[in-house]
Structure formats: structure tokens, C-alpha cells
């Protein structure tokens, strides 16, 4: 029998730590009531943006996916509609970031990336809602509110992340 060993690199430790913070932020957000149902600030995305800009996109993808799975397991919503909403939002955000990753940093800072990702998040969730959860055109009436909230929270998250990056500059 061959003995298999798992090599845990420094990078894995980093991913684990950042995911833990992201999960904690998701849980904090879960326990605060939202003034409008369905509108949430998504503060865990601060950590994901931070990871992407301080380390790289691959690490951000890891943290984002781990956050979605772990949060849903802790809250008991794993494989429920809430989980799939959260997953599709995360996947669409990541996809948009992969598509737009070559935007020149000369003209675009993390504000652009945050806004693009938050819009993609809403689109991803809306597709799931329209196709599966509420298959009815009436929900399009709510779309402007969600786009507006994506704008506000995308901007705020970007500014907070920027502050974090200034406090912990890239080595």
C-alpha cells in the first residue's frame, strides 16, 4: 500500500484563512435583517475582491466557491434554492471577472471590477429566479431595484476593499 501524503502549501493556508473570513462575514450578514427582502450588501465579496487584488484571480475563485458551499452547509441551505441562487450569483461574478480580467489597470481600478461583478451577480441570480423559482415575467418589475442595489453595494464594497488594500499593501 502506498502512503499518500497531502502537501499543504502556504497558498492553501492563505485560501483557508480568507475563506474563513468570507464565511464569517456571510454569516454576520445572514443574521442582520435586510430592509428590503432580497437586497443584501454582500460584504463577503469584500474579502473576495481583496483576495483577487492582493493575490490573484485563481485564489479569488477558490475563496468564492468555498464560501458559497461552507456558508450553505452551516446555515443548512445546502442544495436548496437559496444555495443555487448564491452559487449562480458567485459563478456569474467570477465569469465576468475572468472575461474582463484583461481590462487595462491604467484606466480601470477595482471599482470597475466590483461593479461589473455585482451586476453579473444580479444577472446570474435573476436567471435562476426567472427559470426555476418564480417562472413569471412579473419579477422583471423588481429588476431596477436590484440593479440599483448592485450599483450601491458594488461601489461601497469596492471602496472598503480599496481601504483594506491600502492598509495591507502588496508585498
Amino acid at each position: 500500500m502506498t502512503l499518500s501524503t497531502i502537501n499543504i502549501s502556504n497558498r492553501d493556508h492563505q485560501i483557508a484563512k480568507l475563506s474563513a473570513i468570507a464565511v464569517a462575514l456571510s454569516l454576520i450578514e445572514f443574521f442582520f435583517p435586510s430592509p428590503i427582502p432580497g437586497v443584501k450588501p454582500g460584504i463577503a465579496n469584500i474579502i473576495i475582491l481583496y483576495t483577487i487584488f492582493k493575490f490573484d484571480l485563481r485564489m479569488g475563485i477558490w475563496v468564492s466557491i468555498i464560501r458559497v458551499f461552507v456558508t450553505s452547509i452551516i446555515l443548512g441551505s445546502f442544495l436548496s434554492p437559496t444555495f443555487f441562487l448564491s452559487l449562480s450569483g458567485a459563478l456569474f461574478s467570477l465569469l465576468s471577472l475572468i472575461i474582463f480580467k484583461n481590462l487595462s489597470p491604467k484606466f480601470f481600478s477595482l471599482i470597475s471590477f466590483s461593479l461589473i461583478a455585482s451586476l453579473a451577480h444580479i444577472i446570474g441570480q435573476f436567471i435562476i429566479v426567472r427559470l426555476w423559482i418564480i417562472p413569471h415575467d412579473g419579477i422583471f418589475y423588481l429588476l431596477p431595484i436590484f440593479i440599483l442595489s448592485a450599483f450601491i453595494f458594488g461601489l461601497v464594497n469596492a471602496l472598503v476593499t480599496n481601504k483594506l488594500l491600502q492598509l495591507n499593501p502588496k508585498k
Partner: protein
Amino acid sequence: MIKKILQSFKVAKAGDWFIIILFFALIIISMKLLWNLPQGQYLEIYKNNEILATYSLNQQITKTISGAKGETKITINNGKVRFSSAPCAKKYCIHQGWINKASQIIICIPNKISISILGSNKNYDSINY
């Protein structure tokens, strides 16, 4: 505080402002497109979930309908309509006020009466669903 927030915007580069403006345009366009319900033409009155009557909205008239708890008055006033009196305890139906756009509805659950506005063609709403 406000100064600090404004200062934090200094990181925004030319492309960021472009994206912000684009996003703003998207919000306004989506509001214009998605919140622009056509004016209603007809009023449908439902009692016990069954259609009771259909009226044109282009008139000035008050209808009295007896529901599960008592008499409800529904007032049509040239294109808009409201519950003007109802026997229910909380009067949510009256507090909804006037409605005038296609696919808008008011429901009075205690008295089992609801009204729904139709445009020239039927929009789907959550009752149909």
C-alpha cells in the same frame, strides 16, 4: 465624514467613471422600460376567486358588492379605481388607494373581494400564475 468618503473616490480612474456612468444609464433605462405599465382600460371584480363583473374604467360610478362579511363599495373615477368602503377590520384594501395601471390589483381577503385592472391586452399577474 463626507470629505473622507469623497477622498476614497480618488482611486477611481477614467475607466471607472465610464463604468459608473454606464451603470447609471442602465438603472435609468431599466426603470423606464420595466416600470412603464400601460394605462388600464377595464376593471374586473372577483368574488370568492370567481369573476363577478367587468366594467370600463372610463366612467364615474360607485358599485356596491356584498361579500363574505358585508358590503364593499368600489369607486371608479375616470381611469382609476379604489375601494371606498369595506367591512373588513384593517381596511388594507382602502389604504391601497387609487390604482390605474394595467395588471395592478387590490385584494380584500376578509370580504373575499378583489379587483384587477386590465389593459387593452391581458397582462399576466400573480393571480393568473
